[in-house]
């Protein structure tokens, strides 16, 4: 199963959030599974249309995902998925 790692900033909202294996063949399926484990999680990462939020970055292996609108990028069982915040703020 894909291994998912998070920015530590999400611990503020989900203190029990832990990295680890999460089933899913696409990024969308991984997020859906995370939503089941941590209700409310998806809304922090995607908006109500399903798009990745503007200042959130999601990588599969070392590459940012291509489909930020529907998260259809494929994920292989041995892939690593990183959910990070982009460098922005002030």
């Amino acid at each position, binding site marked *: 199963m894909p291994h998912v790692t998070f920015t530590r900033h999400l611990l503020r909202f989900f203190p029990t959030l832990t990295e680890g294996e999460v089933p899913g063949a696409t990024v969308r399926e991984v997020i859906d599974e995370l939503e089941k484990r941590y209700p409310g999680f998806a809304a922090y990462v995607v908006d109500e249309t399903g798009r990745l939020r503007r200042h959130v970055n999601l990588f599969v292996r070392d590459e940012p995902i291509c489909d930020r609108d529907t998260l259809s990028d494929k994920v292989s069982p041995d892939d690593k998925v990183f959910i990070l915040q982009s460098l922005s*703020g002030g």
Partner: protein
Amino acid sequence: MVADSEPVVRSRHVTTFLVIGLWNSATFGAMLDHILLATKKGTIILDRRSGRWTPRPIAHAGMAVSYAARDPRDGTIWACMDNAHWGPALMRSRDEGTTWEDASRIAYPKGARYIEQLIPDPKAMEDAQKAITYKPAALMKVWVLGFAGADQPGVIHAGTLPGGLFTTRDGGESWELNRPLWNHESRGGDLFAGEATSKNQWGGTPAAMAYGDFVPGIHSVAVDPRDSHHIYVSVSCAGVLETRDGGKTWAGSNRGMLNDYLPNPEADWGHDPHFVTLCPADPDRLWQQNHSGVFTSDDGARTWKRVSQQGVAVHFGFPIAADDKDGKTAWVVPLRSDQERMTIGGGMFVARTSDGGASWQTFREGLPQEHCYDVVYRHALDASGDRVCFGSTTGNVYVSEDRGESWRCVGSNLPPVHSVRFV
């Protein structure tokens, strides 16, 4: 007093602060001895004790809050989170700011669309003749909250970017888009059903540019204290709209409005109200700080009258506060022109009218008079009885206890202030 400590509990949905000497609900509502600030770095409450205003440790530290207000019916404090990374959200405190919890998220329903606006940029304007394009709506920001009266317990309205009004009827457990307003003919009609059936009259607001799009926003919701079915909402950039049937039907209320940036200054639409409010004791008296001056209405927004003049001290600005008893009294914090958006002559002043805008008095005592670059945003001025307060983009908060005639700085070096409300 408040303990000078970090939050003592941090867990999902709940942040607890150690508070000693919590105010009780009786003093909370009656005396308005507290000031609620929404800032770029969190929520701050100032308590008035022995004549001094003292800030508590910040709540939601590090997270932007676009607006914060207290529901006068049940004392719940609401904070509109404007988190750039993790999206807009609502938090509420049912214990006067001691602990906070997540409220349900506001979400646009599937199929909600809006007509794409042209960014006011010369290159983009070259595409002015292009075909209409639509965008799916997603919540960018909760800009303001408006509480219904005691006749509608649990009803709260939320004005948002990209221009939707949401209403909860269960105290924030669930929120519903007001479709009659979203589908209004002035926005192109029912875009859930298909193509636009009328011309879109709502323009974008520059305040949306930080969110990556040029969309309209609802920043003012004024509920008639005599009848909660009677509501005014104000849109940048469109104007004021009114419903008298609880949101089932809406009509523009812009007669008498003037704008200085369109070929037809008396156009029905295209107005840029910066903030609109009403006098609670005289609800037919409305006040509007607009891009094109200060306007007032004494007939329930049937007609508006401009009560400021270009080139005179009182004209441009963002906030306006109405006296809670006297409909003819209001306060503004003017700025220089609509281009520079700076203090006039480097010094800050507050202006007050007591005769319905026929004349204005300016007050400077206690305010900086040189090298001052403070800007006061649209929600960052409030009045309660003899007290008036404003907060600025440079993190200064000033309070007057004599109806705006003299001022005292009660907070400096604070984060940029987005909203100020006496609570």
